[in-house]
């Protein structure tokens, strides 16, 4: 092997090692944050009491841990992971750093679905019907983007613009619907649009996990293709990637993930945009590691945001959607200004 090839191998091994190290550090941080999230709350239990109540059935404390805190943390991890992953996928298939579940209008679509159910389809199993409404409308918005792409052989810019137009349209319809609702319904809608983990239980977690984790193996298997796609459609086509098929499958998968995230918790913005960027800045754009790492960074942001939201102004809760922006934006700016080279 030539010295140049050896140097290349050494560099690649060092790069791969750094990525594994990053993953390891993020997992450790997430475990630490999860433990902190589990040990703080309004009931006044000490961290030790809280953690021991997980394993010992001592009545109220055990119930609080297993019925309230643990589902909340697990859902935060799931939602963060889903949004981070979906954001990375959307950015790859559209080759656009502005792409995210929300800038594409898929989040607004899901929101409109949930609001439609709140206002016009009251009754039992509200949570599940809201989830179904959110899922249906998020798919509708995803297919609108894909339809535009197929009809017009649209560029990624056109798809982004379609998404933004959709976002405004769905937001306007949602606002219009609010005029038709009772005070109670309007407050429910407003509450939903700030995002909240307070209404999740194990059944919701089961369904959300299915929607969020099921598409992941498929997306991860197509990591090479996503890598090639980021180099441009022509390059990917030249190297044998069925771009149209990949784009269609990835949009449907990422929309399913987005709907799984939004339908039970409401709108938790910004994570899907910022988590992939943070991860890409640190470990680069190889989707083999970018997808899981971006998911884990998203989970880290959501767990941190939820824990801060519950404790900063306790017992009043700051909606999670507000906190994600507060903690995500400064960190994002810091990385953006600190990094000298172009990462995208």
């Amino acid at each position, binding site marked *: 092997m030539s010295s140049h090839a050896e140097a290349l191998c050494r560099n690649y091994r060092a790069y791969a090692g750094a990525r594994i190290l990053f993953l390891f550090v993020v997992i450790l941080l997430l475990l630490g944050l999860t433990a902190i999230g589990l040990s703080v709350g*309004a009931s006044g239990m000490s961290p030790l009491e809280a953690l021991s109540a997980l394993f010992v059935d001592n009545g*109220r404390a055990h119930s609080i841990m297993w019925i*309230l805190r643990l*589902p909340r943390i697990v859902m935060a991890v799931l939602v963060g992971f889903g949004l981070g992953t979906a954001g990375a996928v959307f950015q790859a298939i559209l080759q656009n750093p502005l792409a995210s579940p929300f800038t594409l209008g898929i989040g607004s679509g899901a929101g409109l679905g949930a609001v439609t159910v709140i206002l016009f389809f009251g009754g039992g199993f509200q949570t599940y019907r809201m989830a179904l409404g959110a899922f249906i409308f998020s798919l509708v918005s995803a297919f609108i983007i894909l339809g535009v792409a197929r009809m017009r052989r649209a560029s990624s810019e056109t798809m982004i613009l379609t998404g933004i137009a959709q976002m405004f349209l769905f937001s306007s319809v949602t606002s219009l619907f609010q*005029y038709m609702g009772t*005070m109670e319904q309007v407050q429910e809608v407003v*509450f939903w649009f700030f995002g909240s983990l*307070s209404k999740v239980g194990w059944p919701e977690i089961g369904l959300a996990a299915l929607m969020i984790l099921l598409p992941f193996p498929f997306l991860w298997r197509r990591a090479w293709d996503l890598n090639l796609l980021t180099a441009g459609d022509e390059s990917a086509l030249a190297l044998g990637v069925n771009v149209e098929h990949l784009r269609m499958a990835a949009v449907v998968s990422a929309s399913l993930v987005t709907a799984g995230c939004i339908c039970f918790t409401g709108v938790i913005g910004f994570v899907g945009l910022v988590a992939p960027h943070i991860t890409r800045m640190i470990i680069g754009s190889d989707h083999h590691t970018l997808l899981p790492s971006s998911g884990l960074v998203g989970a880290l942001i959501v767990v941190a945001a939820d824990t801060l939201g519950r404790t900063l102004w*306790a017992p009043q809760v700051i909606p999670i959607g507000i906190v994600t922006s507060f903690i995500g934006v400064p960190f994002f700016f810091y990385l953006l200004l600190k990094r000298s080279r172009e990462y995208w």
Partner: protein
Amino acid sequence: MNTTRPKAAPSSQKSHCAIEWAGKRLQILLCCWVLGGFLFFAPAPTLAASLSITDSLGRTVEIPQPVHRIVALNSDILEVLRTLKAQDLVVGVFSEIVREPEFWGDLVQKPKAGSWRDPDLEAIVRLAPDLVIAYSRNPGPELEKKGEALGFRVLRLDLYRIEVLEKEVRALGLLLGKETEADRFCRWHRQHLDAVRSKLDAVADPPSVYVESYSDYHAAGPGSGGHEMCLVSGGRCVAGDLSIPYAVVTSEWVISRNPDVIVKAASFGNGYAVNNAGPFNRRRNAIMNRPAWNHVAAVESGRVYVMDSAIWTGPRAIVGIVYMARWIHPGRFPDLHPGDLHREYLEIFQGIPYKGVFVSDDIAGKAP
């Protein structure tokens, strides 16, 4: 009939007449000057009397008298106008009125002036009101700014606040020449409020109450109507030490506070049109079945109640207060029947028959 003409004047007489005429002209000029000066410098004449009213923001508002055309921008003011038998003066109403046709009757047909928080100023101008009455905070101050330019006056009254309700009803009665009706309502209101308060003086350790607004986990704290109702009803509001009126709290916080009683506000659009307690009971069951709430004293003892928005603050809050007082202090108010009170209010003051369901507990709420 005397038809003789006057004789011609001699020359001496002529000169005298000329002097006399010059004097007269001087007098006329002097009178005109004095009169003109008086008209110029005198204060403008008052075309109509006006009345000073202190609104809910503590401002003194001059309202020209008489008031013949009112735009009522929310349900509380319209309800009070109906209590004062002044609904004939209403020329415009809030758009949301169409959701409660049974309760409002013919008033639903009145021209609409837009939403209570976002009125249609053009529609208001078209209605040419003497007065537009709104809440103190909604719509914003632009209503006065634009109203001044567009030629209508704004009066802001918060008739959902118990502590100012009687004062503002009396002021409105004075303004509209309906003092008798205002006095009648205020005396009725005071009588029942005192009946509740008098029985609570001896309560040393009031039960703790979690009052939840329309949205789940929105605790009614200081500054909210729900908190005020809880205190008047003799409850100790568990959110009493929070810093904002409607704080979003966690489920865990409610469990840790362990309230003896839970009262939830519900808005099904209109309790007057509801004919069974089903929707209220379903909402109550949902609260009883919230995760881990089986550890809450109120849930364990079944003291969880749901109340319709119609009697949750507003001119009818006294009905809600009596319900709450009975829930918080069972057995202490055997002679106070909220159903009867509500019937009285609707039939005497609103002039409509008593009907509808307003609480989840359909035993205490039924009139005998």
